[in-house]
């Protein structure tokens, strides 16, 4: 048997808030994104789905000018609960800027600068 192949949606929307669906290890409390069934830290096999923070800070970003989808801006966002995720940026976002998850598009989480 292969491992369960179902994965939660990238983002869970509750009360208008977009919370990335991460994984949390009940044994060692490691959090990561996206959800993965096994814990890479303590190797326990049952991760729980965990709603991650919807806000964070831009660690770095770059506008990509190559490929069919260009131009688009990518950013590594450090969420307030310690997880880093790659996101597409709607509009512009400077390094250090506060952003909020506002959508998911295909396999990408989308963030926007906090007003």
């Amino acid at each position, binding site marked *: 048997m292969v491992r369960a192949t179902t994965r939660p949606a990238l983002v869970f929307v509750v009360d208008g808030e977009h919370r990335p669906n991460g994984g949390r290890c009940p044994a060692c409390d*490691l959090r990561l994104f996206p959800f993965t069934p096994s814990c890479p830290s303590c190797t326990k096999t049952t991760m729980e789905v965990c709603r991650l923070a919807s806000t964070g800070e831009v660690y770095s*970003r770059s506008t*990509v*000018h190559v*490929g069919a*989808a260009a131009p688009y801006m*990518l950013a590594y966002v450090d969420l307030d609960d310690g997880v*880093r995720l*790659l996101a597409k940026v709607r509009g512009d976002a400077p390094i250090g800027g506060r952003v909020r998850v506002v959508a998911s598009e295909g396999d990408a989480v989308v963030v926007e600068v906090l007003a």
Partner: protein
Amino acid sequence: MTRGVSLVGVGMIPFGRYPEATHADIAVPAISAAMDDAGARPTDLDVAFCGTSFGGMLTGQRVLRELGMTGPPITNVENACSSGSTAIRQAYLGIQAGAFDTALVFGVDKLTQFGGGTLPLEVEDHEVRGGMVMPALYAMRAQRYLYEHGYGPEDLAAVAVKSREHARSNPYAQLRKRTTVGEVLSSRPIADPLTLFQCCPTGDGAAAVILVADELAGRFTPPPVHVLASVLESGRYEPGHRDMTRAEITIQSAELAYEQAGLGPDDIDVAEIHDAFTIAELMYYEAFGFCDVGEAPKALAAGETSLGGRVAVNPSGGLLSRGHPIGATGVGQVVEIVWQLRGECGERQAEGARIGLAHATGGGLAGLDHGACCIHILGR
């Protein structure tokens, strides 16, 4: 006392664009050159390893069949940008352990088969599906590096200028034309702040080396070059906040390599390091201890890492100018270091080089600095 390993023959072809060529068309001349260099016959070689990422099934056999060199074991090695150097390490380990005495290693890839654009990455990786391409990963490192240390795009561009300057006299380099900071910055934007001239070109190539147990080195023509360290690491998985200006896997590998060789950064005369993008070269100066953290642009500007400087970094032009046909790169770096240690590099010779280092790292994978990093330290 473990068994020592020497390099007794090396060869490569000029890296470039050969869209009509097969992998055998590209690799056979490199292998023949290494065999001729060593004065070796096919029967002198116990085993062969082929490093390739995109060569397809049985690349090693497809190539060696044309040289009548099939029969003995051939192992194909895929480890992204470290495929070729990982293949060298496999040969090194086998000889060291006494499993065999002699080995041919070659690396080959043909990126023109993709028709241009960025390197195809594995779509099972969620960041790749989310829009990640290799230039964007390095661009985000560059943005953060410039932000933290207060440098500008011209400091990145200076790496490309030095690279072309070195490659000018290298007949094996894909890009040999001099350039300027202005020209680098005004070339086509790829992933800001990186422009076209700050990214390694798409190309094809092959390189080959022959490794033998030290006690057999006397049977071959050239003065042997000794393997002083051979290290391979995979990156540590870190799903949380990570300092992307710190090249974790290279720092870790460099420490192990220095320890294995009983040497330190001050002992390295010449180095071929993995400058897939301009920012990478700067980060790796710091990872190898060629300068302090945050000082790499200053070391470059002072000429410390140019030919004639304290440590000649990428005298071949590196990935930015020699080119980066993935599987061929790690072997091509070792070929260049062997030539440097033998004093055969003409205008691009690092004078009096006795100790050299080759470093290939790569593979874009979410949560890892890189998927693989392979370092060899060589000495004459």
